[in-house]
């Protein structure tokens, strides 16, 4: 066995070798190899094109490689043509589903296991109809913005067996098991009718009824549960269960025969539907083969991996303490790229509200979190809508009075806007915020409409596209992102699916996508016309230019601080920074960044930067975090 010390040493060697080989080896050697030394396919130029085609093929085909012949043929086309060609393939639909899952925060390798296609893997665990429907729209140049609306028709998976069946049934086909489950259920229901015909007594009825309930477990094999406890839904056994649970049967036995007739009819409908979903009758090779659920079946209130839409709600529960804030945090993070970094720089303490959290540190998140949570206020356990009920049940098994609970979002005394529910950008300038068009009763659908309209959401989508199609670890110049987003928005006004595809095309033909030995902190693409030479680091250059340079630029910069250029400020130690002169003397980089941090976070509105200009919360945080990094660097 390797000793601990040597393992550590080997680890270091590995990492060093990997790092060096990746970052410097190719570059150094490239200088030593004359072009005539090219030993791989074709010329350096053609090889580079082949490399690009192979890489793009993998990206657009959801990780599947192109054959040598396909690579050769595609390399004869222009880059745009190659991308257009690959986007017509059904595998591109799978790629978009994977991207969507990543964007929605639910991409998980645990969904993936050998022998299953993406689609069946996807359906077997989580239900995200918006990921499916928007990807389908991409394939037919429809409305990709369905991704912003979590309320989409449910799609059905082919009927597959799970582990919940008896040992003696092993080896039987799905169809055989389905027929058996159906026959046994009907037989037992008929027996129950006989009991009611022959000797109707509560004891004999309830004994036989328990046998019928047991028969429903045969459907577990297909991942289908009749509502747990069987008492909630009158589609099935609700009233029967309630009667038999009321032991020792205080009431006389009702004539349940009409109810049993209805139950048998419902089962017949379910059975016929499930037959159409058998793998031999429902083959899913691509998104376009997918079927939406039959509404009749959805109304039956069955539960299980095939027939529910609760994956989202179960992952993001509403509890008696979080009051939908987890769902709100999800929306802010996923659709607005606001991960609620609690660094207390989003707003001055003096402007903190006191409804939920008056501490400035808490309020830095809560001022936008709580109003967002309000959109979900009527949805309790598993996303069930309690709007018409007196109480609400949470996922942590707590039940409370609903009227009292929703007071958390009441804007008491404000008749114009009675609810404190919306997408809040600023608490000092209400005109920057988005509220529901229906101020009297904001609904979840209103949130989806706000997301669809919000420029932050488009930018966040494009940012996620960059991370997915180009790479997560690259530094993205905010100006380049702004440019991509602006192009996306322009095209999306005509057609959002085309805008999506055109943005993917821009990304796959970008310098960043093609770079061979990328370096940390470097940007390889900028807004057209921008020369990065002499500009501050790309991580913040655009944000500074957008929010600060109107005052802090050139020789007459306010406070002697020029935030538009980046020069050597310490030639002895080879340090670069902002020109920052006080009384004619250049301040050290460390001092400059300490002052920047102070001005970004101060509560004093006369000193707080940027002065009288609204800056996006994410951008302020970005500058703040970068400044801290720079203090560390100096």
């Amino acid at each position: 066995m390797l000793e601990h010390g040597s393992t550590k040493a080997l680890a270091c060697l590995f990492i060093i070798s990997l790092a060096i080989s990746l970052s410097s080896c190719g570059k150094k050697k490239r200088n030593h190899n004359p072009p005539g030394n090219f030993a791989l396919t074709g010329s350096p130029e053609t090889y580079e094109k082949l490399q690009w085609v192979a890489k793009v093929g993998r990206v657009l085909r959801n990780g599947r490689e192109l054959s040598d012949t396909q690579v050769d043929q595609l390399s004869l086309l222009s880059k745009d043509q190659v991308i257009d060609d690959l986007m017509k393939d059904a595998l591109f639909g799978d790629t978009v589903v994977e991207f969507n899952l990543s964007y929605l925060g639910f991409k998980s390798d645990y969904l993936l296991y050998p022998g299953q296609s993406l689609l069946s893997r996807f359906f077997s665990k989580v239900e995200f109809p918006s990921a499916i429907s928007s990807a389908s729209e991409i394939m037919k140049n429809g409305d990709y913005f369905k991704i912003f609306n979590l309320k989409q028709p449910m799609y059905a998976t082919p009927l597959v067996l799970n582990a919940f069946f008896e040992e003696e049934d092993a080896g039987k086909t799905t169809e055989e098991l389905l027929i058996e489950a159906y026959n046994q259920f009907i037989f037992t229901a008929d027996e129950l009718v006989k009991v009611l015909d022959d000797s109707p007594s509560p004891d004999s009825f309830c004994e036989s009824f328990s046998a019928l309930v047991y028969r429903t477990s045969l459907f577990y094999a297909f991942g289908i549960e009749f509502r747990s406890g069987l008492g909630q839904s009158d589609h099935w056994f609700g009233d029967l269960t309630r009667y038999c649970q009321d032991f020792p049967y205080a009431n006389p036995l009702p004539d349940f025969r009409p109810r049993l007739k209805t139950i048998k009819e419902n089962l017949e409908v379910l059975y016929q539907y499930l037959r159409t979903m058998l793998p031999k009758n429902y083959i899913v090779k691509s998104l376009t083969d997918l079927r939406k659920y039959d509404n009749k079946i959805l109304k039956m209130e069955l539960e299980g991996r095939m027939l529910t839409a609760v994956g989202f709600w179960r992952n993001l529960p509403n509890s008696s303490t979080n009051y939908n804030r987890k769902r709100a945090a999800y929306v802010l993070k996923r659709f607005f790229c606001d991960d609620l970094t609690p660094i207390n720089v989003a707003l001055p303490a003096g402007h903190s509200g006191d409804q939920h959290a008056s501490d400035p540190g808490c309020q830095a998140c809560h001022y936008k979190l709580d109003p967002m949570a309000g959109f979900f206020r009527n949805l309790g356990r598993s996303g069930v809508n309690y709007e018409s009920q007196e109480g609400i049940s949470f996922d942590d098994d707590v039940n409370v009075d609903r009227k009292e609970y929703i007071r958390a979002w009441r804007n008491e005394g404000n008749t114009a806007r009675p609810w404190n529910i919306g997408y809040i950008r600023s608490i000092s300038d209400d005109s920057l915020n988005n509220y529901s068009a229906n101020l009297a009763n904001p609904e979840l659908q209103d949130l989806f409409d706000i997301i669809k309209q919000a420029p932050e959401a488009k930018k966040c989508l494009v940012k996620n596209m960059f991370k997915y199609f180009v790479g997560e670890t690259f530094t993205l110049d905010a100006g380049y992102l702004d440019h991509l987003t602006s192009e996306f928005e322009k095209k999306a006004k005509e057609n959002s699916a085309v805008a999506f595809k055109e943005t993917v095309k821009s990304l796959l033909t970008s310098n960043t996508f093609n770079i061979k030995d990328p370096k940390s902190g470097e940007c390889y693409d900028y807004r057209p016309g921008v020369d990065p030479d002499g500009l501050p680091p790309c991580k913040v250059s655009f944000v500074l230019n957008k929010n600060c340079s109107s005052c802090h630029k050139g020789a007459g910069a306010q406070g002697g601080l020029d935030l538009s250029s980046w020069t050597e400020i310490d030639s002895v130690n080879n340090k670069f920074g902002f020109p920052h002169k006080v009384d004619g003397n250049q301040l050290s980089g460390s001092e400059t960044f300490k002052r920047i941090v102070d001005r970004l976070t101060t509560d004093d509105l006369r000193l707080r930067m940027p002065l009288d200009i609204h800056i996006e919360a994410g951008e302020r945080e970005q500058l703040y975090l970068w400044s801290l990094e720079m203090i560390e660097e100096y």
Partner: protein
Amino acid sequence: MFCCLRLVVVTIATVLVAGCGIKPKGKTDKPLVNNKPVNYELIGGFRGYLVTNQVIKDRVIQEGIPFELAGYFELKENQEENIFSDITPNLRSLLGINEGNGVNSGYKNNQPNSINMLLWYIALSGLATDMADTCDDHSNLFNQKTDDILAKLCTWPEAESKSDKTLQELWQLLMDYDATNEEFLVWRAYVQSDEFSKNTKKEAILNMVVSILYNPYFLLK
């Protein structure tokens, strides 16, 4: 086994370090691009287990044959008493995995470290051993193209097994278009060196395959 493993590990690391040189450390010595110090920190990470497995399946495995690199984590000897049998399937999650539950999601375990580099070595050398074993016993595991190239490598130490053409075919088969020409030239020189010629047939095939698959251009995205 571990002794051999250590030898290979040290050899690969030493070759890479010696070949490329180590850049001197120090903040003041950073080169400049656009007046900004360039940080030579590694960026990128593993492609991840699933993608790497799929890439290998696409490139060398016979279509329709089930294949899992994680299968090489199983200890072949003493199979019935393998105390790791419940653990080994999960080891693949240490090689780069996506996890997501909505708010917390991301690509995890994707940076090289001592444990996952050993795991990669075990998996990739397992595959390489299976490839080398085809010289004695034909296997249905590999596709026709792979079989054809292995047939040439199995003539080791004959000239055909180390010819430019054969080595390019092997490189192209495993690396596809992932790496640069320069990487190929360095690798080819290594395989055609006098030192490498001392390998037995199986050692030669194993080392050729592992040194391609262990290359960062293959493992990292």
